């Protein structure tokens, strides 16, 4: 089988509040024989908030990150939906606007870099599905997740806006996404259907609009619980922080106790591949993963 090699843009969260995401990503890459080269030079993507403050600055910083993947001649994979959105958005804007690209490159030249547009940017979820292939993944499953009802939570920035995602990411329909469902099935699990699976978790408004954010988290968790899910899985560490850590405020906001273990996408794959809980960092979860 072809050996896959990518430049991994970890983002900030995987190096701080969700160490289990980086750990499990590296663990499954190892099991699947995928080589991930860490982009240690990369800076924060701005998380759509630096973009509100200073558009030019965020373009330059994101372009710089992509430059390092280009230097390696590799596709950049992301493990955070918001990193994916901001990086892909930067790429799209620079690739379609030569004037803007020249302006950004003028800045990058000061540090000896040039953005060319030669590296693709895709979320690890889609790299697994499109490059590695779900059939090949199924063949490697040693512990099928058949006893679990698993609720996929897609996270906005991997699926919307579809115009951008069609170019660089999975290209699935945001009103009826299937990638995470397909991945659950490939891992032998039972995918659970519920209305909130492609909705917002509220993360980006958590500080400035806490009630809105908490209700959205509550809606997502209660939807999964009502659909009889044993746990949730998400490709986004920001959604994970909201769903795993904030169940108290979510429960309070919607007037109902909502608490459900939430796994990162690579943790779910890791369980199916026979990784140990420690290899996947399951001990880091605030809502305890009590089923393994």
């Amino acid at each position, binding site marked *: 089988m072809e050996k896959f090699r990518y430049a991994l843009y970890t983002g*900030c*969260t995987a*190096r*701080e*509040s*969700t*160490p289990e995401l980086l750990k499990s990503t590296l663990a499954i890459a190892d099991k699947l024989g995928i080589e991930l080269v860490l982009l*240690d*030079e*990369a*800076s*924060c993507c*701005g*998380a*759509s*908030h*630096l*973009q*509100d*403050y*200073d*558009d*030019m*600055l965020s373009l*330059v*910083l994101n372009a*710089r990150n992509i430059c390092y993947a280009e230097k390696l001649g590799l596709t950049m994979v992301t493990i955070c939906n918001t990193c994916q*959105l901001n990086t892909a958005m930067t790429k799209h804007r620079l690739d379609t606007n030569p004037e803007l690209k020249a302006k950004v490159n003028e*800045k*990058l030249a*000061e*540090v000896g*870099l040039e953005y060319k547009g030669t590296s693709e940017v895709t979320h690890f979820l889609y790299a697994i599905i499109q490059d590695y292939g779900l059939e090949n993944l199924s063949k490697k499953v040693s512990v099928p997740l058949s006893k679990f009802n698993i609720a996929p939570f897609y996270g*906005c*920035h991997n699926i*919307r*806006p*579809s115009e951008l995602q069609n170019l660089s990411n999975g290209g699935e*329909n*945001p*009103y*009826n996404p299937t990638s995470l469902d397909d991945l659950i099935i490939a891992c032998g699990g039972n995918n659970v259907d519920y*209305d909130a699976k492609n*909705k*917002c978790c*509220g*993360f*980006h*408004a958590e*500080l*400035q*609009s806490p*009630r*809105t954010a908490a209700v*959205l988290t509550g809606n997502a968790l209660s939807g999964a619980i009502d659909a009889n899910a044993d746990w949730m899985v998400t490709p986004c560490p920001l959604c994970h922080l909201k769903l795993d*850590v*904030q169940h108290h405020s979510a429960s309070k906001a919607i007037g109902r106790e909502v608490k459900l273990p939430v796994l990162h996408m690579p943790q779910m794959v890791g369980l199916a591949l026979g990784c140990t809980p420690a290899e996947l960092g399951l*001990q*880091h979860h*605030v809502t305890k993963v009590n089923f393994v």
Partner: protein
Amino acid sequence: MDEIKSQQVTFKLFRFNQETDYLPYYNTYVLDITHEEVILDVLNRIKWDHDGSLSYRRSCRHGICGICSIKVNGKAILACKSRLFDLIEVFGTELTIEPLSTKRALKDLIIDKEDFWNKHEQVTPFLVSDIDENPTLETLVVPHDAEKLLEADYCIQCGACHYSCPALEINDRFIGPAAFAAAFRFAADVRDDASLERLHVVNEEAEGVWDCVKCMECAEACPKDVNPIEKITKLHNMIFQAGIAKDNVATRHAVGFAHSIQKHGLLDEGELVRYSEGNIGVLKHMPEAFEMWKNGKIVMPWNMPKSKNLDEVKKLMKSSSTVKF
């Protein structure tokens, strides 16, 4: 000529009459549809062949009046523009037709859009300019200036984005994507004299742009590619550029990213919350922070990871920054 393809589709149709019904209900119709039909054709067929009491709004039939917007399987669409075969491709052959907002339904697919128009009114959605009533010359707008509107004037006020916005669903004071796009459309117009007033309106806490959850639903829902979230981001930028950003949790949250990146390349998550909330405000996050710390999810300041080649980031921060707070 292409062969006419047909297919059987089950339609679940939302029914409700505010004057006589306590709860809404759904009628089911199984129809053979052909590949050139749009949703409006189906509504017409149901009304004309099955139930004349079905109510919905329709007018131009050319995707420009914006009156026929409804939802199919949760996706906001213009009934006159959405081909059934495209919808079947996404959702299969069971389609649920509902009004844009079920809670605002008056009769079947007709909703009360008063909240939508009120939000529009809030942002003064017209050109405010002191121009001579009998000008001798046109007020020129050169192409470069016209481009600054970024398609914001393509909005047909159909409400698709407004009724797809989850922030608005929860917080009814939030102005919402359609009115924000309108605010941008006039604030970005070189002829307009009320830009600053409009920016003040969208700068308010709870109502303004700061409460956007960045879900991108508005960009997805818009049938005219207005991309409201892009305009919301522009309004954020304009607020900072105009120097009217207030010193509050929302603005500090945006600016805090720049401070962190300057120092570490990466975001210092704990410091961002402290900086945004202030030394006292941050205390309310302590219970969660403690839970996170217990589970190894908090990186202490002295262990904060840094980007390799941080000097490059620092240099770029200095040379590429375009605003000050």
